[in-house]
Structures are given as structure tokens and as C-alpha cells.
């Protein structure tokens, strides 16, 4: 288990006073104190980790956010931000001595601006809610994490969320064009807007994906796109995972960027087929779903091209959707893969590394070999187009030691991702889950530089401590310069 910072006893002792003070800022039901009600906030979607928060505060206005943060800063109180609590990495895991700041009441869409193809929304609006709000205008918001019914745009900004359409349409960071946020000191800062790019340092670019460590977002402006006129999908079966991986590389190498490109392995195929009966072939080792979107002239042209590539790479089955209903059926199994795996195992843990696509075959082979070492099975479902793996490690938390074995297995998988040139997380974030693996990817200097950025935003380290970075560093130490008194050296360099 990953250890969180020791709670501060003095803060715990002051709990009643803190609750009273927060009630003066956010009246009525906006401050949640009872243990029973706090229980609802004790974890996010990384359910293996649970902790009752000190108190939950649910502000409704930017003004209240400012006052809550000023209060916390003045009293040296830690703050854990939370959207819908769908983080898979424990980004919203409470701390016993921290105020949990829920943004769920910021639910309004503030402006729909079709002429400038953008929507201004409060952070508690759901991801899907944005697309629904502009559906009638023929527009949609492109990033579509699988939790899109529930997850909020504010949480998407914090986690830089992805989805199946990232390869073609980008992650959250490529689709958010402006934010208003509040610093821990209570300063309200606007970055970007409806215009392209921004002057000065791209602080919007670092705020997106900062996992609640830099500020509290109170308003988001996103780019919305015209809805593609149509889409068709191909369901392609391969006798080997290597064949499927090679086919993915060949499709991209041929200049085709599909709207979505997903692979499932045998265990995931079987689980999904048993659950939703999507008509998946059961005699293949890997199933590839390729979706092409756009106008019919383009989609039909590219479907034929991808089909030819698939056959050349040894596909044993290849079906193109002939109707919208059939396309949705092809996806039904993939979209239900996680719950389907939940039916065949009491618990599962979802990993999220990204690897170079060419390594797909070899990494999956090594993962199979690791199953033996850890005595656990793994089902694989992943965004093949961008090499983003989602190995699902099956375990039973009621069997003593299995959770630990599953975590160890997960860590081995993520180390393998880094070893082959990939990264620890493609879209779920570091949070608590991958925090202690950061040193597999970054050395001390790399991590210190990232933490110095944190110091520029939150010098006292009060925002979401214990997440992302394996060690809490003091900004005063990080800021110290060790300069040797020296002379200008470099005698060997040519000069003019």
C-alpha cells in the first residue's frame, strides 16, 4: 500500500472550529460534517484507497472558493480538490487532516458560442453535458473518457483526460482554450479565452493535467467541433497479438489516422462477448476495432484501405459495419469490457501505461509471462492507436495478500512500459496509484524541477499533498542555489 502523509494532530483537534469557520463562508448544506455524509467522499474510483476527509466543503461561487482557499492558506490547512470523484489514480483521495473541496455545485453552462465554436462552462458540468448542450448545433466536445456520463470538465482539466478519440482529436489539453482558476492564496487568474493561444508563459498548458496541485479551476472554455457526418467501424480478428500490433503500425504508417483504434486480447474478448453478445469472433487471440469518421466519401475510401492492410497482416476475420446499429454493436463489447471483466473476477485493477506501438506484441507477451510470477491473470483492453495500454489485473481482495500481489504486478507492468520507452500513465494520471513509481521515469533533478513549478503556484504545498510526487519537498530547499564561486571556464570552446 502507498502511504499518505501523517495527519497533523493539531489540525484534527481543531476540527469543530474549522467546520464553524467554513460554515461562515459557505452557509447551509455546503459544509458536510457528519461521518455518515463524509463517507460518500472517502474515495474516488481507485477504491482500494479510502480515507474520511476532515470536512467536505461544497462552494457555489468563485467568491466562496476564494474565501475558502484564503482561510486554508491562513490556517495552513491542506486542501484536496474533487470533481465527480471518477479518478482511477486516486487524485481525489481525501486526507484525514485536509478540507475536501468539492466543485460539484458549479453545474452551469455559462455560454454557448457557436460562431467561435466554444462553450464556457463551470467545472462541475459533466463531459457529456457539454456535448449534449451543443448537439442541436451539430457540434460536440471531442475528448470522451469512458466515464463521460459522470466525470466533470473540471476533473478532465485536472487530469488531462483522454478517451478513444485522442489520436485524431487530442486530449483535454488540446481542446481547452481558457480557464479561470483560484490560487491557494485566493487570487483569481484567467488564462486564455475564446482566442487562439495566449501571450506569455503557457500556464494554461501546465494547469491542464496538474492533478489539483496548482489551483482550483472555477470556469472552463472548451473548443467544440462539428460532429462528423458519419462513422463506420471494422472488426478485425488476428491469430496473434503481434499481427494485430503490426497492423496498427501499418495503418498509421499508411497515413490513416482513425477516429478510434482499439485492441482486446482473448480474455477480454471472451468476457465482453459473454456479457453483451456483440458477435465477436472467439477463435482469435486479438481483436482490433478500427473506426473511421468523416464524410461518406472519405470513410468508405479509408475502410477499404484499412481492410486491405488488415488482410495483408494476416487477419482471419474482417467485418465492416454496414449500419449505425452494427457499428454501435461492434463498440458495445469494447465499451462494456471493464464491467464484463468485473463479472469474471471479484476485483480488478486497471493500469494505464503508454508504450511505443511497435512494442505492443512483445510487451503483451512479457505480461503473459508475468502472470505466472504473480499468480494472477490479466485481461488487456487498450487504445492501440496511441499505444495506451489498459491491462486489467484480476484479483480477489478478500483473499489475503492478493491486493498486494495485484499492486506488485501492476508496478511491474508499468516499469516494463518505461523500460521499452513508454510512460507510466497515458490518461489516468499519477495520483496516489503511480506516485511511488515516478522515479522509474524521472530522476531526482527531473522531479525537483517539476516540484519547483508547484512552488511557483503553491509555495506552502497545501494543494493536494501526497499526490504525484513520491516525496514532499520544501520549496525553500528547492529554491536554494548552490553556486560555487568560480571563474569563467570553457577554454576549449571556440570564441569570436
Amino acid at each position: 500500500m502507498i502511504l499518505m502523509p501523517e495527519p497533523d494532530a493539531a489540525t484534527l483537534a481543531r476540527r469543530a472550529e474549522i467546520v464553524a469557520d467554513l460554515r461562515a463562508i459557505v452557509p447551509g448544506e455546503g459544509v458536510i460534517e457528519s461521518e455518515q455524509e463524509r463517507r460518500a467522499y472517502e474515495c474516488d474510483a481507485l477504491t482500494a484507497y479510502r480515507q474520511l476527509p476532515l470536512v467536505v466543503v461544497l462552494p457555489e461561487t468563485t467568491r466562496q472558493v476564494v474565501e475558502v482557499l484564503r482561510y486554508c492558506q491562513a490556517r495552513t490547512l491542506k486542501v484536496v480538490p474533487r470533481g465527480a470523484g471518477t479518478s482511477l489514480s486516486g487524485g481525489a483521495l481525501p486526507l484525514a487532516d485536509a478540507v475536501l473541496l468539492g466543485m460539484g455545485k458549479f453545474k452551469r453552462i455559462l455560454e454557448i458560442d457557436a460562431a467561435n465554436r466554444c462553450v464556457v462552462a463551470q467545472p462541475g458540468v459533466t463531459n457529456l453535458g457539454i456535448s449534449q448542450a451543443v448537439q442541436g448545433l451539430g457540434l460536440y466536445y471531442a475528448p470522451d473518457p469512458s466515464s463521460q456520463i459522470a466525470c466533470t470538465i473540471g476533473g478532465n482539466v485536472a487530469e488531462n483526460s483522454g478517451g478513444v478519440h485522442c489520436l485524431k482529436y487530442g486530449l483535454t489539453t488540446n481542446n481547452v482554450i481558457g480557464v479561470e482558476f483560484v490560487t491557494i492564496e485566493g487570487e483569481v487568474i484567467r488564462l486564455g479565452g475564446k482566442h487562439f493561444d495566449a501571450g506569455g508563459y503557457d500556464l494554461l498548458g501546465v494547469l491542464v493535467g496538474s492533478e489539483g496541485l496548482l489551483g482550483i479551476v472555477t470556469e472552463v472554455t472548451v473548443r467544440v467541433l462539428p460532429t462528423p457526418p458519419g462513422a463506420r467501424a471494422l472488426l478485425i480478428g488476428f491469430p496473434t497479438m503481434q499481427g494485430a500490433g503490426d497492423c496498427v503500425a501499418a495503418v498509421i504508417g499508411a497515413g490513416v489516422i482513425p477516429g478510434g483504434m482499439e485492441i482486446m486480447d482473448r480474455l477480454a474478448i471472451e468476457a465482453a462477448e459473454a456479457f453483451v453478445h456483440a458477435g465477436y469472433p472467439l477463435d482469435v487471440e486479438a481483436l482490433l476495432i478500427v473506426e473511421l469518421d468523416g464524410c461518406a466519401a472519405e470513410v468508405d475510401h479509408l475502410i477499404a484501405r484499412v481492410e486491405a492492410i488488415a488482410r495483408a497482416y494476416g487477419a482471419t476475420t474482417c467485418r465492416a459495419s454496414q449500419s449505425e446499429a452494427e457499428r454501435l454493436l461492434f463498440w458495445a463489447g469494447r465499451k462494456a469490457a471493464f464491467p464484463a471483466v468485473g463479472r469474471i473476477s471479484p476485483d480488478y485493477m486497471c493500469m494505464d501505461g503508454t508504450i511505443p506501438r511497435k512494442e505492443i506484441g512483445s510487451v503483451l507477451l512479457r505480461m503473459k509471462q508475468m502472470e505466472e510470477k504473480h499468480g494472477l491473470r490479466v485481461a488487456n483492453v487498450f487504445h492501440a492507436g496511441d499505444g495506451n495500454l489498459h491491462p486489467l489485473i484480476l484479483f480477489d481482495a478478500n483473499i489475503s495478500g492478493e491486493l498486494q500481489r495485484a499492486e506488485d504486478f501492476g508496478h511491474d507492468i508499468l516499469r516494463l512500459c518505461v523500460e521499452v520507452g513508454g510512460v507510466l500513465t497515458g490518461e489516468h494520471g499519477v495520483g496516489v496509484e503511480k506516485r511511488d513509481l515516478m522515479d522509474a521515469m524521472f530522476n531526482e533533478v527531473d522531479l525537483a524541477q517539476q516540484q519547483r513549478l508547484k512552488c511557483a503556484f503553491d509555495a506552502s504545498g497545501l494543494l493536494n499533498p501526497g499526490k504525484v510526487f513520491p516525496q514532499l519537498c520544501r520549496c525553500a530547499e528547492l529554491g536554494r542555489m548552490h553556486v560555487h564561486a568560480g571563474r569563467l571556464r570553457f577554454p576549449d570552446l571556440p570564441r569570436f
Partner: protein
Amino acid sequence: MALYRPADEKEIAELVATCAAQPETLEIFAGASKRAFGRPVAADHQLDLSRLAGVIAYEAAELVLTARPATPLQTIKQVLREQGQMLAFEPPSWRDLLQTQAQPTDSPAQPTGYSAQPTVGGVLSCNLSGPRRVRAGAARDFFLGFSAVNGRGELFKAGGKVVKNVTGFDLSKLLAGSFGTLAILTEVTLKVMPRPETETTLLLRGLDDAGAIDAMARALNTPFEVSGVAHLPAAVAGRVLEDGAATALRLEGPSPSVAFRAGEIARMFGGATRLDGEASARLWRDIGEVRALLPQGAALVWRLCPTPGEAAALVAALRAALSSAEAFYDWGGGLVWLSLDAEEAGVDGGASAVRSAMRTAGGHATLIVAPESMRAAVDVFEPPPPALRALSARVKANFDPLGLFNPGRMGGGA
């Protein structure tokens, strides 16, 4: 003043550590082609990164390219073209735009032997994007990871070498557009994309500015994936195209798709003339290189990024305030190039008129072409509000605590 030409990141780290001990400041460049972009730098020494050049790794099927920062942009483009790929953000060179300005008389001695070639590190440091930015995103959107030396002389890395990554803070975004004021890049990794098979451009003729902004928004709101959206008013169109005002809409992709989409859009506007293949490519190169405002002689050039729908009103307000104002639009109005006669613009280069008009339109404005003395005296970049300025200054201090790198280049807390 010395000119340093380190061979690798180790020598850079050592040099920075040495400079920190003095402390002595550095002006950092490679091709030095963007030296006239931004505020002039007054530094103790010059650091030429030219020896850190070359593509390190490129695999087309991975859509990822890693290169040394001083690799010429031309080399990168050529390597990608051989595999049917490209930099989707279409970086311009601005060679002619930046060369036209009067040579500075009050600058330190020009370094000799630099190439004046745009480099990949320079493009990223300036976050330079061309016409396709409206659809594909900016340079920052394709910047996946890097290695660099900070102001403490420490070599560090951030981001990754795969297309999808959220591990740690996204420092690549921060380095993009930081004009070398935060760290010295030693290696960069970019996401690359397939080149479209074909392109065609539809021209709508004779629209006024407001009509063109409206037409461009309509085109962008179709699902036909328009990848270039520009308007050249009659007064400037002649430098690039014949026959007066032109609103240009570019379509790219497989030929059956381009043919269909071009037909649909032409029908929507009741007909359009077409530029195919090289003629289309040349038009968009000219737009990216701002040729509709060249040669501008004694003119100053501003680059405005307003809310796209406000662009025509913005230009009308500027024309009312300054009779010499000439402008054209890219990014569907999201980018306005403006030239002003230097004499009419006055000592502030038109900054007060431009910034006051921008406050109504929303967005930001940058003075691109102006004599060095003017770029030193006025805010070249949009001045940030106080809280943002203070935050930017803290960010700078946490990368380059002694202010060694490109002092003064950005202003505004940077």
C-alpha cells in the same frame, strides 16, 4: 562578451553553472532567425546552440520524432516528407517578414557564422504555428517532451517520447513559447502526422471583412474539416493573388474525400473558384509567411489573436483610429496581421490604439516587426494583469533563479 558554442548538453550545463557563479547572463540562439522577434536581449555573453543539431530518432509508424534543438526546420521537414509525414502545425519561417526591418544600430555586435535558418528548437521556443493551426493545433500541441538545462546548470527532462502521456506536469507546454527564458533545450520530441494526399483551396471573391468572417465561421462549422481559413481584403490581396478580395478555404485529405467536401462547400456558397495542388500550397505558404503585407518598407507589423468573431470589428476600429492600417485574416479571424505606417503609429508603435481595441475584442497582440529601439521601449507582448505577472515571474524564478537566460526577452514577469 564571449560567444560560446558548446558541443553537447554537458558543456551547456557546465557553462550555465559557471555563469551562475558570476553571475553573467546569456543570449541563447541557434539559427538566430528569430532574433528580431520579441524584446531585444542585453546579455553578457552569447550562446550558440548550432552544434546541437541532428535527428536522433524517427519512426514514422510511431508518429514521433526526436531531434537536437538546432536541427534546421528544413531538415526536419525533408526527413518527414520522405516518409509521407509532416509537422501538422505548419510552422512558418517569417524569414522575409523579419528581414525587412531596418537593421538595428544600437544592438550588440551580430554574431558571425550563424545560419539564419529556422531550427526546431526555435520554432518551439516561439510556439510558431501556421494556417493549419485553426484545425490541427499549435506547435505546443505537438511538443511531447524535452531535455534541457535549467538556470542552475542542471540537466533535466520532462514529458515523454510517446504520443499519449500525462505523467507529471506538462512542462513541454510551458517551454513552448517561452523564448528561451526558462531553460536551454538540448533535445526535443514532437508528434508528427501523415501528410494529406491532396489539397485544394476554394476562393470566395469580393466579400467585405464582416462578410468574410461570417463565411469563414460557416465553413468552420461544417463537418467538412476545413484546414485553412483566411481572408485577404482587396487592399492587400494583390500581393498574393489576382482579382481583389479573396476568402480562402483549404481542404486536405484523400482525393475522393477532398472532391466531395469541396463540392459541398462550393455549393453552400453558391460557387467558388479553385486552386489545386501547388497553387494551393503556394497560397498557404504565402499566408503563413505574411506576404500579403510585404514588402512593407517603413511599416510596423502587429500580430493580433482576437476572439475570431470579433476580428472584423477590431480591424474596422483600428482603421478608424489609424488611417495607414492594413490587415488580413487567418485562422477564420483568430489571427489578424496588421501593418501600420511607422510615422503615423508614433513612438509607441501604435501600442495604445492596438491594445485598447484588443480589450474590446478579447485576446492578445504582439508587435512583430519594429526597430529594435522601439521593441526595447514598448511592451512587445501583451502585458499581463498584476496577479498573472507575479505568477509568471515566480515560474521564471523557479527555472532560472538568477535570470541568466535571455534577460528581458519577454517582459511581463518573464
